[in-house]
């Protein structure tokens, strides 16, 4: 396989039908997700928004194949999800980079598991993604030497490198400072335009969701259910501090307050 073929954008449809997930705890069963049905189109950028405990991360983990023992159907391009796979890579809230590898080694980790490439091609691909996230020149840095924002950039490059069809992002920017976060919003939009992946993004920040996604899906907790959907039709690239964007985020937040009631307002 050539590097060029390997870099061709890939995406997938996701279909969830009547997905239920129950966690058994010592204090009885906890319904994390109830009757979730959802279709996500190719190259669509979808945000899951909701207060803590609404099951949005659990749903992301189900799509990742990390959460087993749910009922209902979860399919990627028509194939049922049974285990994790490199067609669906994940970026976590904590960077989860491997400290025993340098930056390049981390980005190469998934690539080395891909057959049909030689090491030179793998390295070329890894360097392409490091450049895409703006980290050229840092390939031999150690993880502990990087700032929080840089670590998340490496994590993004690592998740993109195996060329997944679906990129799953679980509050990836939540632990970063506001300035770094805004930079990353710009970068992520640019990368989404360049790589054309299907992206699922979990956040509790409505404005972040409006800034990034084509569709915002609202969850409510106990039991975790989908309560509303909002299409975001603002032109791209979007500026986080844009007034139209802020106004839309405010409208959605106001609707959320009505839907969720006073005790379940998202932050």
């Amino acid at each position: 396989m050539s590097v060029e073929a390997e870099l061709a954008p890939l995406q997938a449809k996701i279909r969830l039908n009547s997905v239920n997930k129950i966690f058994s705890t010592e204090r009885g069963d906890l319904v994390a997700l109830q009757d979730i049905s959802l279709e996500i189109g190719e190259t669509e950028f979808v945000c899951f928004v909701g207060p803590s405990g609404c099951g949005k991360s659990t749903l992301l983990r189900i799509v990742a194949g990390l959460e087993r023992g749910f009922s209902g159907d979860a399919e990627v391009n028509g194939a049922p999800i049974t285990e994790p796979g490199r067609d669906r890579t994940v970026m976590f809230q904590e960077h989860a980079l491997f400290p025993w590898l340098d930056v390049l080694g981390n980005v190469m980790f998934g690539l080395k598991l891909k057959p049909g490439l030689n090491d030179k091609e793998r390295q070329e691909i890894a360097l392409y993604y490091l450049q895409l996230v703006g980290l050229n020149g840092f390939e031999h840095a150690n993880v502990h030497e990087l700032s929080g924002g840089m670590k998340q950039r490496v994590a993004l490059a690592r998740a993109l490198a195996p060329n997944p069809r679906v990129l799953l992002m679980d509050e990836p920017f939540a632990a970063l400072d506001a300035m770094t976060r805004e930079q990353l919003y710009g970068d992520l939009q640019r990368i989404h335009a360049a790589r054309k992946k299907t992206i699922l993004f979990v956040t509790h920040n409505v404005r972040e969701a409006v800034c990034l996604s084509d569709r915002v899906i609202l969850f409510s907790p106990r039991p975790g259910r989908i309560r509303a959907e909002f299409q975001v039709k603002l032109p791209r690239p979007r500026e986080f501090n844009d007034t139209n964007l802020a106004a839309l985020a405010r409208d959605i937040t106001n609707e959320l307050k009505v839907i969720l009631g006073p005790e379940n307002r998202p932050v």
Partner: protein
Amino acid sequence: MKNLVAPFLIFAALLGGWEYAARSSGVSAILLPAPSAVFTYLVHAAESGELLKATLVTMRRLGVGYAIGLCIGLPLGMLTAKSHIARNTLGVIALGLQTLPSVCWVPLSLLWFGQTETAMLFIVVMGTVWAVILATDHGIRQIPPLYREAAETMGSRGLHLWLRVLVPASLPYLVSGSKQGWAFAWRSLMAAEIYVTILSGFGLGHLLHYGRELHAMDQVVGLMVLIIFIGFAADKALFSPWERFLRKRWGLSSS
């Protein structure tokens, strides 16, 4: 260099004081050998080849015993980390036997294996293996589940997951566990060599023991110095590269 001047002066003063005390106090050389006598012994024993021979015998036993201890301890530690049954049985045994000073194995070992190399190795292995099991177990348990999940989403499974993720992720603990195992092995072997007399090779412990029987305290103290030196040098040679790697990559020291 400047930092070395004060320690050098202090050590020189200590040695000088010891030499002076040994010469002028009238205490028998059997009780208090002068450092110069210890030094003379070391030079003579080194020239005659006696020290080198004993050191090689000791290092061979240590190397073999330690290697066996690691080969048994690392997999068993992984087992106790991953299996509840192993943890509740083997893990408890390891915890208990780790507190047993390895010299306590000497009587049993002599009865089972007689005055043989096997008896010697058995004591070293018993001294090493429990510490290694406990450290490995601890190391594997400390791995954030996130590493495993991240690796799985990139397609890592089975043996690849173990060798490329779980083992390297627990490296800081494996290094400190191996280091601890090394220290235990070294202590165990000295105990074994002092207590178990065998004809298949005289190690440093034996030389020390015979020094006592011959009332040759210059020999006893000389060997103590040599044993300290070897323990120190081996520790540096074996573990310093790993610790440097850990500091560089992880940004931490392993101890």
